[in-house]
């Protein structure tokens, strides 16, 4: 279709611009030298990429910092925009490692994928990956849609899991408009968890301030907010458990070029993944948005230090 082609062209143009911009960045010499020597494979330095949002940048800095701490030559190439762009950069070797999310990467590689449980998603992902790329062991940390209620609502109705919502009549939900039709939205809540009579209020800020306000002011009972949004902890919200895996797993996982993958690198990155939890992502994002405005590198260095990884 025309639009798909347009989007692809735009993404390609965006990638070209991003790469060109970074190539001329004097602080990013490692990525420059790597681009020229990409064919030299396993011996060359590891360039960690990131998407253009804080959490991805922090994770990239954590990977790079942990590798450097163990004497492996690593640098970062942050802010590569959309998935089309950075998967392309991984394939052409201009970057070699990327902090990915299992579910979204799987859907990108195989739009028809239906797996939702963490293990199933990871298995499906392994077989969907292109030959040149592989993923290491996923961490427990997940950044995904999550259903949240206020602490007061949770206590009053004794709710800890989505399944506990079943008995509540006249339940109201706020979230992005796509929840109305997507499988993990209203249709899934009805079919998988048997909740009926949901009133849905679409609010288009991806669990941002307007959605939060609707929840905390009591206009709605449940709100879809990404699981690593600091407002969850700041407002003492209760994130409901999802025992039926309605929402596909989105574990943070190192996606790496096979020609840069070796046991030493695996050991470092697996040690990082072993320490990463959704709680740590919440904390890291909260620090990044804190009043003293630290950089992603600062936040990453602190975390590595605290966890004895650097």
């Amino acid at each position, binding site marked *: 279709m*025309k639009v798909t082609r347009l989007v692809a062209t735009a993404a390609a143009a965006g990638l070209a611009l991003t790469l060109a911009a970074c190539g001329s960045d004097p602080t990013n010499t490692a990525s420059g030298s790597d681009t020229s020597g990409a064919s030299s494979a396993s011996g060359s330095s590891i360039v960690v990429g990131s998407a253009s949002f804080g959490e991805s940048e922090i994770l990239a800095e954590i990977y790079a910092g942990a590798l450097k701490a163990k004497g492996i030559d690593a640098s970062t190439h942050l802010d590569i925009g959309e998935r089309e762009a950075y998967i392309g950069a991984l394939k052409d070797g201009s970057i070699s490692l990327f902090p990915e999310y299992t579910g979204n990467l799987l859907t990108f590689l195989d739009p028809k994928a239906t797996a939702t449980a963490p293990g199933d998603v990871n298995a499906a992902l392994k077989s969907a990956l292109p030959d040149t790329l592989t993923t290491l062991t996923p961490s427990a940390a997940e950044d995904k849609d999550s259903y949240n209620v206020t602490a007061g609502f949770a206590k009053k109705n004794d709710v800890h899991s989505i399944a506990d919502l079943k008995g509540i009549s006249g339940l109201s939900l706020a979230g992005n408009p796509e929840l109305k039709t997507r499988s993990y939205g209203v249709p899934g809540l009805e079919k998988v968890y048997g909740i009926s009579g949901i009133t849905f209020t*679409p609010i*288009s800020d991806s669990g941002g*301030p*307007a959605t939060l306000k609707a929840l905390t002011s009591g206009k709605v009972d449940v709100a879809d907010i990404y699981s690593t949004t600091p407002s969850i902890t700041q407002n003492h919200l209760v994130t409901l458990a999802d025992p039926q895996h309605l929402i596909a797993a989105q574990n943070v996982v190192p996606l790496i070029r096979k020609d840069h993958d070796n046991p030493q690198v695996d050991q470092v990155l697996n040690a990082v993944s072993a320490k990463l939890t959704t709680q740590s992502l919440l904390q890291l994002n909260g620090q990044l948005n804190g009043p003293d405005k630290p950089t992603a590198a600062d936040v990453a260095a602190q975390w590595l230090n605290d966890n004895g990884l650097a």
Partner: protein
Amino acid sequence: MNIASEAASWLTDGAHWHGEDGFPHRIVQHLGYTALTVAIAAVIAVPLGLWIGHTGRLRGLAIAATGALRALPTLGLLTLMVLWRGIGLTSPTIALVVLAIPPLLAGAYAGLEAVDRQTVDAARAIGMTEWQVLGKVEIPIALPLIIGGFRSAVLQVVATATIAAYIGLGGLGRYIIDGLAVRDYPQILAGATVIVVLALALDAVFAVVQRSLATPR
């Protein structure tokens, strides 16, 4: 099929013409938001504009203030209002009223300013009170420009009332916001087309009204 013909078939699909999500209901909602907004803005802006135009006071302030209000991004203002008032009709209405005030205010004071001073002086000379000067001389002469202010305000509000859908209200913005969420481009284009047609139709009505008032008397 290309996106335009898909949008055309989306528009002509009978299923999209009834019920809560149907075009008639969404158009009524959209016009409702527009009417409410312009009515509130008019109550604030028109008397103020008439006073400024009649007395010539605070003219510099009015120009500066309307310029500043015009520069406010409505979607940003909406988010701010939601943090203050929560989701509901109040927040988008305030944001849209702020959008509608500048053209209404400008129409009113510019309309009165354009009245020939000699005409006003003549009215005073034959013994009219200030209220009579305003009501019987200035407003009738300024009416085409005042209506022009309404025309401009309505056009802007109709085009911008789509933001109500951003925080879960209805109106024609629903097609655009919901379509964007699931990348349903035909739905977005169909919704946008209806908004454009609605805006042009309202503008045409105002053009006719304005022309009938501007006939030489």
